[in-house]
């Protein structure tokens, strides 16, 4: 049993109280510890991913209690890939937060940031549904604090909406878990998968179906699927920029949970939950793509525009997930990597744009110091997000469309994604030309004292952009990795046997009682 699997959860969990208790008044120590933790997490993520890349499933039994009685952490290709993605994103966003001085505008930024990471990484690694709920709560509690970091009336108001919406989501999650436990008597994902598959045809499954629908509702709220997306635009737009950029991974936690639970526990071929996948998820995901694109076109402010781009790109991810085919999930995973990075870049660029401007509305203002580089980065981010060649958004969309070719709804998938891409290109083009391109027609204010944003802030955005370029250049390798991941998801026998047949304390599944 490898202990490395729990380190991504334990390390931030130890670092956060250390920062609060020992380094409370020393911002530089906080910064150093925080960055060091992120670097360690990136290394850990890469190590875990390398270990699982040959198809091994890593298992960590907490307290040495065997599943399904104890809680287990499980690392397979999907979880470790998401851990690495989170760590890389968090590292560069943290560099931006330090460079732009966001962490000085309120207290406990670094501690909350660590708790946030603990929750996200735990949610990716856990193999138990109730434990998933607990990690969701950990990441939400930290996100409430980060969301209202630096205060302000607008932000607090958006914060109230965000917290209330997520509290309702948590309540729904608990109702779903209660029904699942009442129906099956277990909450361990692997055990649950075996019990659901073992249901006799014709057995009473009303409770289980209710639970499956409630659960997908909860994950859809997290993934901002239309019509459950209303919390996203105002909270992401009002959140501090580095926080919004980190939140780019939080919608993916919802998508991850949908992929995990609905390929393993309730796969499409189970009779009891048949129809949930094709009838509901795919059409709603297509509506999300369209609503997001319309929002991009209709947005009056740059930050709202980016939030609708996030909704649209989450829709694309969920379209690919909603196919529930091996190629579909592979495409979804590649697009998920891309859309996390692209959304984070755009949120940070919006914050750089705010630098030296009085408003984020789409009004032309005089150019300020550093505007050229910011505009260039926006151009880069917009190309990536809308899916124009040559960046990974283009490749990701091609993969999604290719996977959609075999679907009965192929006409819809093609037309909605392609038309929405065109609409978002127009929306981004209009916003970009108003905010950046026409800036030279306005006379600069000679009394303006705005200086360019710091080099370190640009380094944060640039790092994310570099990762996105790597994702484009090595698209072939990454895609073959996501294909292997998807194959592993559709053949869960290794996962099930590793989780359920590894002996632990007081239980030896092979040797009997």
């Amino acid at each position, binding site marked *: 049993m490898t202990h490395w699997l729990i380190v991504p959860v334990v390390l931030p969990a130890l670092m956060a109280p250390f920062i609060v208790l020992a380094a409370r008044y020393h911002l530089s120590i906080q910064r150093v510890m925080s960055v060091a933790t992120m670097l360690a997490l990136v290394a850990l993520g890469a190590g875990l991913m390398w270990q699982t890349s040959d198809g091994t499933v890593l298992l960590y039994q907490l307290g040495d209690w065997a599943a399904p009685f104890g809680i287990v952490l499980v690392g397979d290709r999907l979880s470790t890939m998401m851990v690495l993605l989170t760590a890389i994103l968090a590292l560069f966003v943290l560099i931006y937060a330090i460079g732009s001085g966001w962490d000085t505008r309120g207290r406990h930024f670094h501690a909350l940031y660590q708790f946030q990471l603990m929750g996200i990484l735990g949610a990716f690694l856990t193999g138990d549904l*109730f434990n998933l709920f607990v990690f969701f709560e950990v990441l939400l509690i930290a996100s409430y604090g980060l969301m209202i970091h630096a205060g302000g009336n607008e932000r607090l*108001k958006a914060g109230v909406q965000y917290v*209330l919406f997520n509290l309702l989501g948590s*309540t729904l999650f608990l*109702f779903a*878990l*209660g029904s699942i*436990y009442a129906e099956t008597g277990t909450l361990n994902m692997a055990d649950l998968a075996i019990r659901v598959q073992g249901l006799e045809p014709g057995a009473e499954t009303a409770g289980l179906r209710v639970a499956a629908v409630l659960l997908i509702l909860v994950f859809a709220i997290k993934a901002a699927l239309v019509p459950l997306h209303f919390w996203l635009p105002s909270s992401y737009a009002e959140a501090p920029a580095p926080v919004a950029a980190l939140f780019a991974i939080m919608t993916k936690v919802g998508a991850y949970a949908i992929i995990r639970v609905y390929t393993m526990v309730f796969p499409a071929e189970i009779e009891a939950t048949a129809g949930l996948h094709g009838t509901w998820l795919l059409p709603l995901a297509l509506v999300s793509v369209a609503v997001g694109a319309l929002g991009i076109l209709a947005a009056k402010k740059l930050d709202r525009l980016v939030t609708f781009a996030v909704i649209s790109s989450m829709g694309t991810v969920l379209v690919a997930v909603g196919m529930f085919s091996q190629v579909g999930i592979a495409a979804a995973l590649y697009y998920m990597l891309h859309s996390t990075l692209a959304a984070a870049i755009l949120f940070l660029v919006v914050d750089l744009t705010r630098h030296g401007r009085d408003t984020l509305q789409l009004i032309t203002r005089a150019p300020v110091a550093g505007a050229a580089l910011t505009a260039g980065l926006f151009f880069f981010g917009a190309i990536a997000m809308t899916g124009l060649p040559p960046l990974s958004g283009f490749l990701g969309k091609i993969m999604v469309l290719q996977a959609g070719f075999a679907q009965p709804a192929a006409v819809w998938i093609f037309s909605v994604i392609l038309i929405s891409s065109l609409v978002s290109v127009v929306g981004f083009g209009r916003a970009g030309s108003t905010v950046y391109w026409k800036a030279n027609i306005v006379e600069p204010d000679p009394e303006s004292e705005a200086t360019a944003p710091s080099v370190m802030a640009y380094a944060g955005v640039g790092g994310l952009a570099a990762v996105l370029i790597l994702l484009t250049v090595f698209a072939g390798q990454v895609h073959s990795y996501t294909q292997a991941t998807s194959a592993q998801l559709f053949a869960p026998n290794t996962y099930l046997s590793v989780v359920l047949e590894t002996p632990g304390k007081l239980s030896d599944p092979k040797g009997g009682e």
Partner: protein
Amino acid sequence: MELLVASAIGVLTAGGIYLVLRLRTFPVILGISLLTYAVNVFLFASGRLTIGAGPILNRYEDLTYADPLPQALVLTAIVISFGMTAVVVMIALGAFLGANDDHVDDIDDTEESAQ
């Protein structure tokens, strides 16, 4: 007893949903509290209703015992929902004191865009 527990959950949920749909933060927070009470009772019931039995197997007597797992789940859920209610009360108070307005919906931005 099943009827009593089921209707209690139902009434709490219905009242909670009604309050959550109100426009001001105070009723909404009350509604969320009612919903969390409902879900806590619901979680208890998910381990089947048992009267007068310990949450542990007893080797000397009969095999009646209460399912211990939902009790552990409820404990976790209570702690989390209690803490969350406190957090949301603080944030809502901050927003109310800052803007002197406790509506949960978005501020009308027609004035802003008219500029």
